[in-house]
């Protein structure tokens, strides 16, 4: 009986450890670098009730070898992702922010997405790089997310 109880407790401990290691069910691993093959993603804390804007800061950008890219910004819970906006890079050259004040920031209205995804859990910000011209694959383009946050109306 005792060894069976210990076995059960051990199994439970192992399972709990596994669950804790995996983290909350809705969290996604942060991948701040976007390439044409893979979107960047950041987990952001659940927004405050008054928050309607999504602010995103970019730490660095490398343009593609040819053509242009546009960055598509989405909010997601699990596989349910909704676009909140997109942008292109102007000026178009590469940049690297050496400190926070050099980062490029973008603000998007996220109210519609938040209404559908909910405000009671962390959300994932995804930034995907898409070719602006389908005839020119955007090889070599990268974007590094620095941070993201929700903000209320100024």
């Amino acid at each position, binding site marked *: 009986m005792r060894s069976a109880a210990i076995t059960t407790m051990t199994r439970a401990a192992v399972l709990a450890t596994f669950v804790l290691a995996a983290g909350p069910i809705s969290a996604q691993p942060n991948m701040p670098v976007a390439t044409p093959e893979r979107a960047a993603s950041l987990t952001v804390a659940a927004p405050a009730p008054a928050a309607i*804007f999504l*602010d995103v800061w970019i730490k660095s950008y490398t343009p593609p070898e040819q053509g*242009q890219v*546009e960055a598509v910004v989405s909010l997601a819970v699990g596989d349910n992702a909704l676009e909140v*906006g*997109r*942008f*292109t*890079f*102007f*000026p*178009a*050259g590469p940049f690297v922010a050496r400190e*926070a*004040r*050099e*980062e*490029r*920031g*973008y*603000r*998007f*209205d996220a109210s519609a997405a938040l209404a559908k995804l909910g405000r009671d859990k962390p959300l994932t910000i995804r930034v995907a790089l898409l070719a*602006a011209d389908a005839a020119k694959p955007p090889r070599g383009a990268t974007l590094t997310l620095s941070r993201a946050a929700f903000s209320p*109306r*100024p």
Partner: protein
Amino acid sequence: MSRIDRRSLLQGGGALALTAAATTVHAQPKISNKAIKVQLSPVLRRSVNTMALNDPMLEAYRKAVAKMRTLPATDKRSWEFQAQIHNNHCPHGNWFFLPWHRAYLLAFEHICREFSGKPDFALPYWDWTGNPQLPAAFATQDYNGQPNPLFDANRSSQSVTISPTYVGAMKMSQIYAETSFEVFGSTRPSGQNSTAASWQRANGLKGPFESGPHDHVHTTINGDMMQLISPRDPIFWLHHCNIDRIWDHWNSLGRANTSDNLWRTFAFNGQFFNPSGANGTTAYNTTIAGVLDILSLGYRYTLPRFNVAVTVALLNKFINPGDPVERIPLTWGAAAKINVATVAQGKLAPPQKIKFTNAIESFQRLNLTATVAKQAQASSRIMLFIRNAEKPAEGNVDVRVFVNHPNPTADTSVRDRHYAGSFTFFGAGHDHADHGANPSYMLDITDTVSNLQIAGIDLTKDINVQLVPVPIPGEKTASEVKVGSIEVAIF
């Protein structure tokens, strides 16, 4: 400002229109037989979409650009120096973006005025929502057998089309719907705590207007437009003129700029230069507060407006059915179910076009009080008079009025942007109908004309008015409609 709804002015059950008609027409109000010309001062910046290749403004712009290109880069009026101003000073990604570019364009416009020899030169704007293709005037290497000064060979393509995802009507309606300046106009630089010049290019957050249409047009045109040296491309100035127009329109919708003094008192010093003398310049320094009223800067994007009280006062003083004002032939539209041919015959004058002039005569001649004169100078109305409309002997119709519609029919929606209002015949077709004098109607088409201009439809040469009779459900349809005359008066 109180406004009389145009439909109530016309219909209000018909009674208001007839009352107005009784006031203005049956009482024989007068139109001065001196052509009332409206001198637009400030100048009117117009859409390049509506300009022929040889439009005087485009010709002037070509001449100015060609001249600027010949000057050495050290000359502050030169093409290259002007481009370097942007390269060295332009703020992006913060709330200085809009006002800085407004001041920048203003000084540039002054230089163009000087070099073109056209004192009323007004920078055209490229309304990429109305026409997302690169304007033809900029896309050809040659013009009239000479190198085209507006051409830029560095563009990725001369047949560029801007994506509606970024500049389409739906996107623009979302942008206009934003009420906060620090979203519409981008945010303050992060951490700004003074008006020190060092904040001018500090990063804030780009709002959807700057990061969307603005940036996307730059990157889609490509070439010089991709970088901060973008003013080397002559389309840059028309692009930013549209940006400025959109800001002005956003304000006209009742959206307020920020009142924060970190913005309003911020100064742009030593960055812009107005032409002065034969070969010189003077510095144009300004705070942001100094560039918030475009009328005081000497330009506008829309027709000016009177308030209604002034309009009525002028109408009462000056309307005279016997003295036409700028009365030029009117073009008739077709109706689907009514024999419009009848309308064009009989008592009507031959089909005519109404010509719009934007010259204003001195208001002192109208003997207005100082207060009214000041109001009058700030606005004007375009009024349409439909005189001596003969009530149908049998039945009735609703007559819809359109402005510059290419092909209106009875099915054309009243939500169509060309729709200006309608009138009907009160009591027509009924035994108790008034068999007195034929009614006349007055219709304010200022809003329609203004909205069409905003949509990039040029009305500065001709305003065409179409009358489309439409059956009224439940009533017998009249077989013909006759009107005595149609006039447009501009005050």
